[in-house]
């Protein structure tokens, strides 16, 4: 019994996954859900064969390239920004409102500007992805940086360390759990961002494929693309968790 329970725990997510897929398949069958509303898993599986593997790869890579670039740039911008904001009240006062402005601007609303100014290459899509992904990193990291116990910052001050070192050697390590939780949020946002960007301007990519397929009633293909998208998200999310575990084992649970 205990052994069984242990196996159940270890493979819980797999078991849950299988159960959901089964319920989905049976539900579609039982309630005769039409394919144009929700295709059954088997129909989605079949849909994978409608495109050649190399074409799937092409779409997937087009999206992942943008998502990863956007994610990296978002991180590269957000972390220094979070530092600047926690370091200076003035910067925080001036910059924060604009960050909120950017964050609460629906990208699709400014699509014409982006397309007209940045052209049609990979650039506008990366910009859109970056804009969508960066805000949670700024906020979480800033919160982590600001919640360092006073005793650690006093230690730093007593050593007359530069503020840079205070940030990199004390605040940053302390904020790491929060930075990483933000990175996990950001990677999923970057994927969604890349898809949204493809809605605005693209001729390939999973987002393009999804919209194209839905608009031509190939819902099963759209779902197949969605499956790849979601699987990529899960893998990247897992990679970030692994990275944290490897590089900063102490940052998973503090204390």
């Amino acid at each position, binding site marked *: 019994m205990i052994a069984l329970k242990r196996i159940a725990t270890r493979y819980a997510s797999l078991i849950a996954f299988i159960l959901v897929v089964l319920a989905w398949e049976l539900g579609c069958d039982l309630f005769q859900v*039409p394919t144009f509303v929700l295709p059954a898993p088997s129909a989605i599986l079949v849909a994978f064969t409608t495109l050649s593997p190399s074409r799937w790869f092409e779409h997937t890579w087009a999206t992942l390239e943008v998502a990863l670039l956007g994610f990296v740039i978002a991180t590269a911008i957000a972390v220094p920004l979070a530092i600047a904001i926690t370091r200076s009240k003035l910067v925080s006062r001036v910059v924060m409102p604009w960050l909120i402005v950017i964050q609460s601007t629906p990208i699709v609303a400014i699509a014409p500007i982006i397309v*007209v100014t940045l052209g049609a290459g990979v650039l506008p899509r990366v910009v859109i992805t970056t804009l969508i992904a960066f805000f949670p990193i700024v906020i979480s990291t800033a919160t982590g940086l600001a919640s360092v116990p006073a005793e650690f910052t006093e230690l730093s001050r007593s050593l007359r360390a530069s503020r840079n070192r205070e940030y990199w050697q004390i605040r940053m390590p302390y904020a790491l759990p929060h930075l990483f939780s933000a990175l996990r949020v950001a990677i999923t946002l970057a994927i969604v961002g890349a898809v949204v960007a493809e809605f*605005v301007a693209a001729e390939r990519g999973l987002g393009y494929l999804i919209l194209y397929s839905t608009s031509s*009633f190939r819902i099963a293909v759209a779902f197949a693309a969605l499956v790849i998208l979601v699987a990529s998200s899960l893998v990247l999310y897992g990679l970030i968790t692994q990275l944290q575990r490897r590089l900063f084992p102490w940052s998973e649970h503090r204390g």
Partner: protein
Amino acid sequence: LDAVSVQLDWLPAGDKAFVYAGVAEGFYRDAGLEVTIRPGRGSADAVTQLAAGNADVGTAGIGSLMQAAAEGGVPVKAVMSIYSKPPDAIFTVEGSGITDLESAVGKRLAMPTFSSSNALWPAVLERNGIAPDSIPVLSTDPSGMAPLLAQGRVDMTLNWVTKAPESESVLAQAGKQLEVLPLSDFGLEGYGFSLMASERTIEQRPEVLRRFVEASRRAIEFSSAHPEQAAAAVKAAVPEADLAVLEGELRNSLPLIDNEISARDGLGAFDPALLSTTWEWIADSMDFDRDALDPTSLVDTRFLGAEQ
């Protein structure tokens, strides 16, 4: 009054003015109908909403219905044609030197990422003996197209003639003049914008549907006779609309409704031959087998009334 929900294929605009005019002028009320209008997000969306039973009747391009049928079928039928000519057109600026497809070779074209026009484009080129890749294409958000043209980032856009007034106003701001080249000039034929109904409506409320179709026909005739009043009806329901643009859109759509074909067959009719041609264009451009379906099975003209 019988409640009828109408699913539009897109946001309120001049080319859909007749539905609003029908409400404002009381054509629907006179037919014993209480009509509610639902703006949509594209023909495919409208067809899906109808198929799912979220609306009783709707407007959409018949190409979408054909595609849906070819992909497995939806319980939706076209009950009345509105456009008997395709609305697709090339928009360019005066003086661009583009007057036909030959002179468009090597020029840059922007097209909306997700539009039914896109698939037709290569087929039109091929029919005119032009290699599709001889014209570089830029897919973009629809809202980016007119600015791109006005800025000279592209030389032409693929569009619907009904959308000309908006593009005109954007080009005017850049001091440019719009030039419209309908694709029908290059051999494109077929039905477009149509009135559709879900099979449930057809089966369960045929009488209501008949009255709706009849009232709609009167509304369309009214709108083509009194574009200003029809546009004003939209404006009254949708304050953010621009009256001049609404009227322009409506006027631009009239030749697609009122033309030699509708004169020949009568407004709303589906001529089987033209219906086949419509399907052949769709089938060729979307890589469907021409024999995959019988296009006449997608229309149900029983509701067109006495005139037919």
